[in-house]
């Protein structure tokens, strides 16, 4: 494990040599006025600093566009530390780009001079486009509303230590619960399926003793929700759930 990490850091220090220069990139960005309009890829040229994050690169583009009186590129973003799950760009053929991280944690040092970067929204029937790169991911909320909870009213809980949970189970449950609901699994899946998202919700509930009481009821509802199954998908888009 540590050796793998060392190699990762070694790779970083090599890339570090390229830091000084400004990079020229050609962007091809999906622009679409609203849900009902027709969209198209539009070309932009930007000069970037490799230290920038991908979203900061887009911020700069947007500032330039606004100064010219043009509308900024609409994209979802918020915490910019990889946890809120808002950012969702399909960059050069991959969700969140080349680094298996969230878009906000992707930095321009992973691109090279003169590269063409294609930026598209998530493509799935379940995620209709709202504007430009923004899509509607409320389908995820509806899945959780269908049974992704433990029915416990405020105040009715027993002492937190009353039910011991083996560390290994708690850790497993955490791994599933750590899903940030960005939708990359749907975007990456060739069938645009939400199996990984649903799987993460269900395995957390199934692992914890608290979730077991109503397992059958909630499981059934999830199984019946449109187009989403409960088992782990054929495609493991790993790294985004961890």
């Amino acid at each position: 494990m540590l050796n793998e990490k060392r190699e990762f850091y070694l790779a970083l220090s090599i890339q570090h040599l390229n830091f000084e220069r400004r990079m020229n990139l050609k962007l091809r960005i999906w622009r679409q006025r609203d849900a009902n309009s027709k969209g198209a890829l539009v070309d932009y040229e930007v000069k970037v600093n490799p230290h920038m994050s991908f979203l900061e690169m887009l911020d700069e583009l947007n500032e330039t566009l606004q100064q010219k009186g043009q509308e900024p590129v609409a994209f979802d973003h918020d915490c910019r530390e990889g946890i809120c799950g808002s950012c969702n760009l399909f960059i050069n053929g991959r969700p969140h780009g080349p680094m298996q991280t969230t878009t906000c944690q992707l930095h321009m040092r992973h691109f090279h001079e003169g590269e063409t970067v294609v930026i598209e929204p998530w493509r799935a029937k379940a995620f209709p486009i709202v504007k430009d790169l923004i899509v509607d991911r409320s389908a995820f909320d509806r899945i959780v509303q269908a049974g992704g909870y433990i029915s416990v009213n405020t105040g009715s809980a027993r002492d937190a230590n009353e039910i011991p949970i083996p560390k290994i189970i708690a850790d497993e449950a955490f791994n599933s619960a750590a899903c940030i609901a960005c939708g990359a699994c749907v975007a990456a899946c060739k069938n645009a399926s939400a199996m990984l998202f649903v799987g993460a919700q269900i395995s957390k509930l199934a692992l914890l003793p608290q979730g077991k009481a109503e397992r059958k009821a909630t499981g059934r509802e999830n199984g019946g929700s449109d187009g989403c199954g409960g088992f782990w998908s054929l495609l493991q888009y790993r790294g985004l759930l961890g």
Partner: protein
Amino acid sequence: MKFDSKILEGPLAEKWTKHKFTQKLVNPANKRKYDIIVVGTGLAGASAAASLAELGYNVKAFTYHDSPRRAHSIAAQGGINAAKNYQNDGDSVYRLFYDTIKGGDYRAREGNVYRLAEVSVDIIDQCVAQGVPFAREYGGLLANRSFGGAQVSRTFYARGQTGQQLLLGAYSALSRQVANGKVKMYTRTEVMDIVMVDGKARGIVTRNLITGKVESHAGHAVLLCTGGYGNVFYLSTNALNCNASATWRAHKKGALFANPCFTQIHPTCIPVSGEYQSKLTLMSESLRNDGRVWVPKKAGDKRKPEDIPEAERDYFLERRYPSFGNLVPRDVASRNAKYVCDEGRGVGESGLAVYLDFADAIKRDGMNTISAKYGNLFDMYAMITGEDPYKTPMRIYPAVHYTMGGLWVDYNLMTTVPGLYAMGEANFSDHGANRLGASALMQGLADGYFVIPYTIGDYLATMPADKITVDRPEFKEAETGVVNLVKRLLSINGQKTPGQIHKELGKIMWDYCGMSRSAEGLKSAREKVRALKEEFWRNVKVVGTGDELNLSLEKASRVADFLELGELMIVDALNRNESCGGHFREEYQTEDGEALRDDANYAYVAAWEYKGPNQDAELHKEELIFENVKLTQRSYK
């Protein structure tokens, strides 16, 4: 103005129990006749919306995010405090109360803080029952750690993602109520104004962020759970969309704004790398347990850190504070980092950073131990900076993290506007002048799960359940106001984007109203902010139209409020002629440069009343009475 904090007389430990008993109740069958508007769906908002819906009230919840689960509570890393005393190390409700009030530098109400400590234990029970996967020991019981310099281990955590897991717990409870039909969820909807009818808050005006449609929603009470205002500084650890517009517009409707100058600066953030920087990323405070903070002794020393010999390094925290060393509280560590950088000894390209060095720790404990403790943080640092912290020291610099100030609320969490409540970071109540680590999550959930469900009934029971319609003139007037604001912003068509002006505001605030403040600096900053505000309304450039998704417009509307709030922060900082907690006035320090509190003259909450555009706000003082704790000066020597 007469202040009534509504805290009962009597022994500290009995106040909340007695208070709950004196609260009027709403008959269970009548609860469904009341509509409650909850703005914001972070820890405070989601927990309140879910709990009130469980009680039977009709709730309308609003968020500008695409889902309630995106609120910035999700980014809290460290943990949540609770006086469970599971570790048998002498913790108690009283000790948590005492630590919090002392940590807040004696600028919070005893009654509020004690209640916070009291309900903290219930929060953990509730979260575990919801399926929050807290860290556990091999025996299956909950694990704790000591956090932020506390002498006891009372912090519950879920790896470095405690905020996420707690928010998902509240979000799942909220989702259950949405499915039950008790909560109506409005996503991508921004609150633009609070509507008052007969002197009471009876609704809100919102703008649909996708269609631009301006709409009104009526209810019997309005709960603002909209977070803090750290983004006044442009760069902070807040999420990019965090804003103060809801609280500020409530302030303009009559809610007093308390202690706006109390802002917390966190010492361990990844430094700014360039002018394009959009946000600062926090590195957990726990790093200071093993890392050593230093800068070169010589100003302008641009050698690589590895090339600077031991004798030419200044471990300034260890030097100045021999007993606490690198573990001094957040404000002390931050201020000292600023001082050495001001002396020209800062490191990195910008000179605005200090080293946090793990070389000794790696030598002592080995690479594997350090990696097991901080591996994920090191990876995050490497991802962002492209540097390897195992080999070269990390560079860190302080950044704005949390705002202790907020809307003034009484013991029931009601602002000075009847029917308008403020919860979580949006209110001012529990942290005084400085917040302890792992206390923000505790407060947000305490307010939402265990305070508002009891206190809101007392207000609702006094008013008729009759619904009012949004056709009333008060709503129409507020809607017109919002439509006009949008029109006005779109019509200026000047030269500067809202982002540029925000950045300029942030720089003024950081330079003059940041880690260290002086009367002279604050005065000039006030002029600068006023001039910037004037320029904003003359020279801002907002592109697009009002009836579509318009990021430029959203930003402009928020920046307009930041400009006004920024000025109030400066006014408050100028008024408070003492140093306490996150507020450090250069004129008020001890001989060896430590903060000097003035309890005789400033042991009060400064609550500001809005008097109109371009009018000075009026100061109201709520005296703080300490019956249980003795006020002492902090010392970390």
